[in-house]
C-alpha cells in the first residue's frame, strides 16, 4: 500500500507543555485512520501540524510527497479539513458557503449533491448563525469534502451530532473511502473509532501508546471475554476448573466468568453437563474501552 502520510518523531510544545511527544505513524492510501485519545491528548495539535496549520518543534512530516512546512498552499489543494475550532461568518447562507468553497479549485464536486447527502437541503437558505450545532458541524464536514480531496481530515466530526445523525455520518464517511479518499479521523468516542477505522492510533498525554486495527488492539490488550448468566445454585466450584477460565465472581444470582479464547463454549457445555440451563447466558466482548483502560490506566472521558 502506498503511504500518503508519514510522520516521524513529531514533537510540539506550547511553552513548557509538551503537547505532542515523539509521535510517529504512517497512513496508507484509501484507509480510514483513526486517532483516538482523551481531551488534551494532543490529537488536534498532531493533525494540524500534519496539515501545515501549526508550526512544530522537530520531526519530519510528509503528506502526499509534500512538506507541510514549505508547501502549505499546494498541500491544501489536495486535502480537505474539518477543524475542531472553526466557524463561518454569521450571516453567510448554507448554499453560499458551499458555492464559495467549491470555487477555490477547478476539480470541485457538485455541491448540491453534498448538501443533500449531509442533510442540509432544507437549510439551504439558512444563515450559519441560525443553524444548530449538528447542522453547523455537517456543513463544515461538507465543506471539507467539496474540493474532492485526496485526504480528508475530520477532527471530532460527530461532536454535537445526535445519535441518528452520527450513524448517517459514519455511513457517509465509509462512502467517501469507497471513492478512494483517505480519511484521517480524530475522535474521543470509542465506538466511533471501533466501528469506522481500519487502523487506530491511541494517544495519551502527547504520546502514541498503541497502533493497530481495532480488533488487533482488542486481541492484544483486552483479550479477556466475560461470560454472564444468572443461576440460583450457590456453589459452582467446578466453574474455576474449566480450561481458559481465569476468575469467577458472583453478585447475588448473577455470575460472571472471565476467561480467554473459547471460554463461552466451554462454560456453556459445562453448565449443561451440570443440569444448569440459564436462559440469559451471554458474553460481554471486550471493547476499545477496555483496551484504553488497560493501556493508560484511565478512561477516555477523564
Amino acid at each position, binding site marked *: 500500500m502506498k503511504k500518503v502520510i508519514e510522520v516521524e518523531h513529531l514533537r510540539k510544545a506550547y511553552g513548557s507543555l509538551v503537547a505532542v511527544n515523539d509521535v510517529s505513524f504512517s497512513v496508507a492510501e484509501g484507509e480510514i485512520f483513526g486517532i483516538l485519545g482523551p481531551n488534551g491528548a494532543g490529537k488536534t495539535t498532531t493533525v494540524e501540524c500534519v496539515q501545515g496549520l501549526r508550526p512544530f518543534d522537530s520531526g519530519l512530516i510528509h503528506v502526499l510527497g509534500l512538506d507541510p512546512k514549505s508547501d502549505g498552499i499546494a498541500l491544501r489543494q489536495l486535502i480537505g479539513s474539518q*477543524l475542531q*475550532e472553526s466557524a463561518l461568518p454569521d450571516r453567510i447562507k448554507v448554499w453560499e458557503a458551499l458555492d464559495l468553497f467549491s470555487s*477555490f479549485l477547478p476539480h470541485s464536486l457538485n455541491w448540491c449533491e453534498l448538501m443533500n447527502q449531509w442533510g442540509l437541503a432544507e437549510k439551504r437558505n439558512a444563515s450559519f448563525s441560525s443553524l444548530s450545532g449538528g447542522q453547523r458541524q455537517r456543513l463544515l464536514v461538507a465543506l471539507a469534502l467539496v474540493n474532492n480531496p485526496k485526504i480528508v481530515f475530520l477532527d471530532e466530526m460527530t461532536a454535537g451530532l445526535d445519535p441518528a445523525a452520527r450513524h448517517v455520518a459514519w455511513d457517509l464517511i465509509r462512502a467517501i473511502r469507497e471513492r478512494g479518499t483517505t480519511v484521517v479521523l480524530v475522535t474521543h468516542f470509542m465506538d466511533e473509532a471501533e466501528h469506522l477505522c481500519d487502523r487506530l492510533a491511541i494517544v495519551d498525554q502527547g504520546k502514541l501508546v498503541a497502533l493497530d486495527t481495532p480488533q488487533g488492539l482488542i486481541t492484544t490488550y483486552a483479550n479477556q471475554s466475560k461470560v454472564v448468566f444468572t443461576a440460583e445454585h450457590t456453589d459452582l466450584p467446578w466453574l474455576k476448573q474449566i480450561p481458559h477460565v481465569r476468575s469467577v465472581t458472583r453478585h447475588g444470582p448473577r455470575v460472571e466468568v472471565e476467561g480467554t479464547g473459547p471460554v463461552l463454549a466451554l462454560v456453556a457445555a459445562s453448565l449443561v453437563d451440570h443440569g444448569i440451563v440459564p436462559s440469559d447466558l451471554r458474553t460481554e466482548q471486550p471493547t476499545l474501552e477496555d483496551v484504553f483502560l488497560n493501556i493508560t490506566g484511565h478512561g477516555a472521558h477523564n
Partner: protein
Amino acid sequence: MRTLLKLTWVELKLFVREPITMVFTFALPLIFLFVMGGVFKNNPDPDVYRGVGAIDYYTPAYIALVIGSIAVVGLPVHFTAYRERGVLRRFRASPIPLWTIFGSQVLVSLVIAAVGGVLVTVAAKLAFNIGMPESPGLVIGAFIAGVLSFVAFGILLGSLLPTTRAAQGLGLILIIIMLILGGAGPPREVMTSVMRGVGDATPLRYVIVLIQDPWLGFGWNWAFFLIVMGIMVVASLLSRRLFRWE
C-alpha cells in the same frame, strides 16, 4: 480570479446583511453633512474654508470620511471578529491565498465607499447645491488612492488589534479624532496650532485634501499623494508581516 470575485460578492452581501455597520458607514457622513450644512449654509467666505462655501469644502471631506469609517472601524472589527470566531482558521485551511482575502476586502471597500461617496455627493447637491468637481477624473483618482491606502491601514489595524472589543473601541476613537481634526470638522483656519499638529498626524487629512484639491480646482496634490501612497506601502508591508490567522 474567480475565487476573488466570488469572495468579494459574498462579502458584499454579508455587509448589506449587517445593518448596524451599514447604517454607521452611510449615515455618519450624511448626519454631518446636514448638521454642518444647516449651521453654515453654503455661502463662500474668503476667510475660512479655503474661500469656498462650507459644503463645497466639506463634501470631499465627508466622502473621505466614508473611506475612513470603512477602513478604521469596519475592517478591523471585521478581521478581529473573523479571527476570534475561527473564520480565518477555516479560510486558512482551504487553498485560498492571503492576497485573495486582502484583495476581496479592497474590492468590497471600493464598492461600499463608492456608494457612500455618491450618496454624500447627491445629497449635498440636492440640499445645498454644491459645485461639482472641477477635475472629475482627478477626484476619482484621489478617491481610489485614498481607498487603497486606507484599506491597507485598516487591515494593519485588524492584524494588530487582539480582540473585536479593542477594534471597536480604538476604531471609534481614531475615526472621531480624524473626523474632527483631520479636515471634516472645524475649518483649519480656526484651529489652534496643537489641533493642527494632531490633524497633520492623521492619515485621513491627506486623503481629504487629495480629494478636495481637484474638486475645488486646486489641481493634483503630489506631495499629499506621495504621503497617501507611502501609508499604503508601509501598512501593506507591515500587514503581511503581522497578520495572524488565529
